[in-house]
C-alpha cells in the first residue's frame, strides 16, 4: 500500500513538473482591440502585428485576443479575464484602455502590460505609440505636387491631438512645396462609417478639391476618388486594391517589429516597462509604394521619407500658429509633450478647430 502511494506521489510530481516545464516554454501573449479585426484599418493592423509575433516566435508563444472591447468599464473585465487566463504579456491597443489597464496592472503585478497611445505608466505597464504625423508630412508634399487645383479635401474624425497633429503636419508638407496650398476640412464625427466617408469625399470633390486625404478608417473615400478619376491617400493599411489608379500612397501602421521585440524580451526575462514613440525610422510607420505619380514626385517623396527617417522632425521651426503668432523659432523642434497635446492649427489651415 505504502509503495503504491509513493508511486502515485512520484507520478503526480512528475506530471506537475512536466506541466510547469511546458508552461515555461510557451508564453501567452494577449491583445485587446477596440474595433473588429475585420475593419481593415486600425485594429486590423494591430492584429496583423499579433500574427507576425506568432510567425516569428513560432511555438514559443501562444496568442489570444479580444476584439470589439468598448473603451470604459467594460475594458476592466477584458483585461482581468486575460490576466486570469494566464496571459503573461497583454497589449491594450486603444487610448481609452488607459485607466482600466492601470487598474488591472496593479492587481496583477506579475503580468506585463503594454498600452498604445496613452501616457500613464506603472512598474509593470509600459506605453508605446507611433508618429503617424511623419508620414502625413510626406503626403502633404505629394498632394501639393499632384493637385492641379491646389486644393485637397481632408476628411477627419474627431478633434483630438493625434488628428490635429496630422492636419498640421500635412499642411506644413504641402506649403513647403506650394505656399498657397489649401485644404478643405470636413469633420464626420466618426472613426468608421464607410457611407459617411464616401459622402464627405463626394462633397469635397464637388467643391473643387482634387485630392483626398483622410483620418478615418475605411476605404470608401479612396473608392470615390477612383470612380471620379481623381487621387487620394490610404489610411492604416495599403488600400491599393481598392483604388489601383487613385492611391498615391498610404500610411501603413506596422506594429509587428515592436510586438516581436517586446514578446521576445518577455520570453528572455529582460522585459521592462518602456515609453516609446516609434516613427518611420523604427519601421512602425511605413509608406505604401508611391504609385500613380511622375518620377520626380516619387523621388521627392522618397527623399523626404529618408530625411525624416534620418531624424529630421517635420515640426521644425520657423512655424507660426494659425493666427500668425510665432510658435517655433528658426531651427527649434517641437517637443513631444506639446505634440501629444496639440490643440491648435498652424498657419495656412483654413478651418476653425472644433472645441
Amino acid at each position, binding site marked *: 500500500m505504502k509503495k503504491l502511494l509513493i508511486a502515485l506521489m512520484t507520478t503526480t510530481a512528475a506530471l506537475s513538473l512536466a506541466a510547469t516545464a511546458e508552461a515555461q516554454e510557451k508564453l501567452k501573449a494577449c491583445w485587446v482591440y477596440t474595433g473588429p479585426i475585420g*475593419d481593415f484599418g486600425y485594429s486590423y493592423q494591430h492584429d496583423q502585428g499579433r500574427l507576425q509575433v506568432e510567425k516569428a516566435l513560432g511555438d514559443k508563444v501562444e496568442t489570444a485576443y479580444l476584439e470589439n472591447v468598448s473603451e470604459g468599464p467594460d475594458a476592466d473585465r477584458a483585461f482581468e479575464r486575460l490576466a486570469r487566463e494566464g496571459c503573461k504579456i497583454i497589449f491594450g491597443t486603444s487610448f481609452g484602455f488607459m485607466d482600466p489597464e492601470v487598474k488591472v496592472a496593479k492587481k496583477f503585478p506579475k503580468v506585463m502590460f503594454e498600452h498604445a497611445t496613452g501616457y500613464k505608466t506603472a512598474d509593470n505597464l509600459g506605453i508605446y505609440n507611433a508618429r503617424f504625423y511623419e508620414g502625413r508630412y510626406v503626403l502633404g508634399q505629394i498632394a501639393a505636387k499632384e493637385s492641379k487645383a491646389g486644393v485637397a479635401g481632408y476628411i477627419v474624425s474627431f478633434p483630438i491631438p493625434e488628428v490635429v497633429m496630422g492636419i498640421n503636419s500635412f499642411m506644413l508638407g504641402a506649403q513647403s512645396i506650394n505656399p498657397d496650398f489649401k485644404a478643405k476640412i470636413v469633420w464626420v464625427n466618426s472613426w468608421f462609417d464607410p457611407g459617411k466617408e464616401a459622402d464627405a469625399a463626394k*462633397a*469635397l470633390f464637388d*467643391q473643387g478639391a482634387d485630392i483626398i486625404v483622410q483620418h478615418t478608417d475605411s476605404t*470608401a473615400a479612396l473608392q470615390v476618388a477612383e470612380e471620379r478619376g481623381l487621387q487620394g491617400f490610404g489610411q492604416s493599411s495599403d488600400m491599393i486594391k481598392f483604388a489601383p489608379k487613385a492611391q498615391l500612397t498610404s500610411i501603413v501602421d506596422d506594429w509587428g517589429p515592436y510586438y516581436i521585440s517586446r514578446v521576445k524580451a518577455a520570453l528572455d526575462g529582460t522585459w521592462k516597462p518602456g515609453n516609446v514613440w516609434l516613427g518611420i525610422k523604427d519601421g512602425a510607420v511605413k509608406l505604401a509604394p508611391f504609385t500613380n505619380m511622375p518620377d520626380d514626385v516619387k523621388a521627392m517623396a522618397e527623399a523626404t521619407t529618408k530625411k525624416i527617417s534620418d531624424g529630421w522632425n517635420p515640426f521644425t521651426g520657423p512655424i507660426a500658429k494659425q493666427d500668425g503668432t510665432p510658435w517655433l523659432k528658426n531651427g527649434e523642434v517641437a517637443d513631444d509633450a506639446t505634440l501629444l497635446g496639440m490643440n491648435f492649427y498652424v498657419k495656412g489651415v483654413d478651418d476653425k478647430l472644433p472645441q
Partner: protein
Amino acid sequence: MDITVNILLTIATAATPLLIAAIGELVVERSGVLNLGVEGMMIMGAVGGFGAGYLTGSPWIGLLAAIALGALFSLLFAVMTLSLATNQVATGLSLTLLGLGLSGMMGTSFVGQPGQRLPNLDIPGLTSIPVVGRLLFGQDPIFYISIALTAAVMWFLFRTRTGLTLRSIGDSHTSAHALGIQVIRYRYLAVIFGGACAGLAGGHLSLVYTPQWVENMTAGRGWIALALVVFASWRPWRVLAGAYIFGAVWIGQLHAQAFGIPVPSQLLSSLPYLATVVVLVLISRNKRLTMMNTPASLGQPFVPDR
C-alpha cells in the same frame, strides 16, 4: 449646375438604403409586429450581397443574395415571435446582435477585398440629356427599386383588399382572427417582406454606396430606418420624405463644412437627426390622424386560443 446635380445624386444614394429598410419595416409594423432587428438583417444583406458578388463576379447575383439572406434571417425572427410567441422587442434586439456578430464571422475572408459595383443605368440618348438626364435615367438600379417599392407599398396598403386585411390585423389581431383571417400567416409574410427589404438595403451599402465589406458597415442605419417609421407615423410617403430630408441635411452640412461655414461640426453632424424629427413632428402634429395610423396591436404577441 453640375454641382447641384452631383449633390442631388449624392443625396439619393444616402437616402436609398434608409428608405428601403424603413418601407419594409413599415409593412411589418402595419401588421402589428415590431421587429427591432433591422440593423441585423441589413448587415446580413450587406455581407451576403458582397460575398455573392465577390465569389461569382456578378453584382446582380449579389443583389439577389442580399435580398435572400435578409429574408432568411427575418424568418428566424418570425418563427420565434409568431410561432413561439416570444417577446418581440427582446427577439428583435438579439437578432441585431446576432446579425452583427454572424456577419463579421461570415465576412472574415472578404476583408480587404474590393467588391463588385452595380452599374448605373445608362440609356443611350436619355442619360446624356443635360441636368435631368443623370438624375432621372443615370442612377443605380436600387434607387429605382426604392421609388417603385414605396409606390407599390402605398398602393398595396391603401388600395387593395389584402392591404386592408393586413392593416386590420395590425389594429386588432383578435378581431381579425375572429373574422377568420389567418393572422399568423399574414404576419409571417409581412416579416419576411421586411427582412427582404432590409437585406436589399444592406446590399445597396455593399454593392453601390461603398462596394466593400467591413464589419459593422451599416453603422446604425437600421436604427435610423426604425426611427423614420415611427416619425413618419406609418405613412409610406412620409418615410420617403423623411429619408430624403435626412439625406439632404446630411449632405448639405458636409458641403457647408467644405465651404468653410464657421459652425461647429458637432452641431452640423447632429442636424440631420434634428431636422428629420422636427419636420416629421410638424407633419404629424394632427393627433387624431396619428392615432389612426398607429397599429394598435403593435408589439403584442398573438396566441390564437380558439
